[in-house]
């Protein structure tokens, strides 16, 4: 995700989730989301076979 796309995504998602933050706080959230997105990159390199299920603990 490039910087502009990330900026747009965070601002849109904040609005969608009902946050009303001042610009300084929005900038902080963008910084934190950049770090999360960088860490999430490690998930992309893993080949996931179709049969691998999510590790859920839900027990009906």
């Amino acid at each position, binding site marked *: 995700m490039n910087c502009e796309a990330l900026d747009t*995504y*965070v601002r849109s*998602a*904040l609005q969608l*989730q*009902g*946050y*009303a*933050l001042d610009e300084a*706080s929005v900038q*902080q*959230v963008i*910084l*934190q*989301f950049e*770090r*999360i997105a960088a*860490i*999430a*990159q*490690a*998930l992309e*390199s*893993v080949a*996931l076979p179709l049969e*691998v*299920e*999510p*590790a*859920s*603990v*839900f*027990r009906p």
Partner: protein
Amino acid sequence: MSQVADIAAALRSGSITASQLVEDCIARIRIRDIALNCFTGRSFERARAEAAAVDAMREQGLPLPALAGVPFAVKNLFDVEGEVTLAGARRNEDNPPAARDGMLVQRLRDAGAILMGMLNMDEHAYGFTTENTSYGPTRNPHDASRISGGSSGGSAAAVAAGMVPLTLGSDTNGSIRVPSSLCGVFGFKPTYGRLPRSGSFPFVQGLDHLGPFATSVEDLAAVYDVLQGTDPEDSACAQRPVEPVLPQLSTPRKLRVGVLGGWFHEQASEVAREAVRQCAEVLQAKPDVQWSMAEAARSAAFIITGAEGGSLHRENLRKDYAGYEPLSRDRLIAGSLIPGDWVVRAQRIRALALKEMLAIFEQYDVLLAPATPLPAHEIGTAEIEIHGKRLPARASMGLLAQPLSCIGVPVCTVPVWPQDCAPMPLGVQVIAAPWREDLCLAAAHLLEQQGVARYVEAAPQG
């Protein structure tokens, strides 16, 4: 040395009463906590009443329970009857007090242990430093200018300073193992689902573990045996019988031990590598065991934590952003914006990472890895540096702990004292396969018996 066994022997012989033990403990807390800031609440009246009950049992000749007279304290996310469960947050102070003790507090009380108070933590358990803006930082007893680690910083520091011999904490991504490492105490995170979490403030229900801190492996085993048992109120709590570990702790056995390489080597400082080397030598461990999914597991834990933790607090964050911890509120909000695909992918990777680790455990009984990349840094540090790479301090001290809690395996952190970071300790994770807490604690006990891992009570400073 087992403090639990010493207390039991002293009470049996009549050389001390539980009431005297409690008064001594109160005096220690009053003196030592001024400089360290471990306790956010004290339950001294309750402690005096519980001690009187233990003494009455003894006077009547009744058998004393396993932890009779042992003072303990809990991270302030555990429910304590009549007290507000803070979970490190000022904004929770107006919540109603807990109607009853959390399950693990109740089990300790039933075993005769005596609650002395509630301990400081990172707000809502989101942090690795216990730099709490509302309640102040908990300081490291071995050097008060440094962090205690987190999020269970008060729990580790109170034991390191000798205020209480036993505490409880929680570990979602390393919050027992990181402060154990930085404060030089023994900390134990059992298998995910082993201990019930009912009556504790949640953070990430799919990753939250609870566990003890103590001054010896024997004491960890003694308290772990008391804490075990099923609980229908926690849906993730496994329906397994109690499997006591204390009676077999010293049984001689030949353990197949390996040292985790790859991620755990690359992200560790030289001092952390040295701590592992010392343990590996004693246990004759094979080097460089490769778990290729380690980094992905760490990322998965980070993403799941962000999404679940962010979601848990989203409604309150929308209404009361200013009331949240400035050091973590933006990270929490960012977490609540994580795309669903990343979360599902993270949960699938978690399953795959566990599968690979289970295959490794067919060849090894126990694995070793550093608990933290570095020893404790100065309070207020914003970034840490590992082999030239700068990382945010408050989110990164757990990067060697996170991959393991992601897959739920039991881990005991043992305190090691490498020369190059004296007087500070650095912990080593002793890791076993799911449900093999017995092997995990047996290996930790061996390290303690050989003198590589040891508790050193921090001397008062200044």
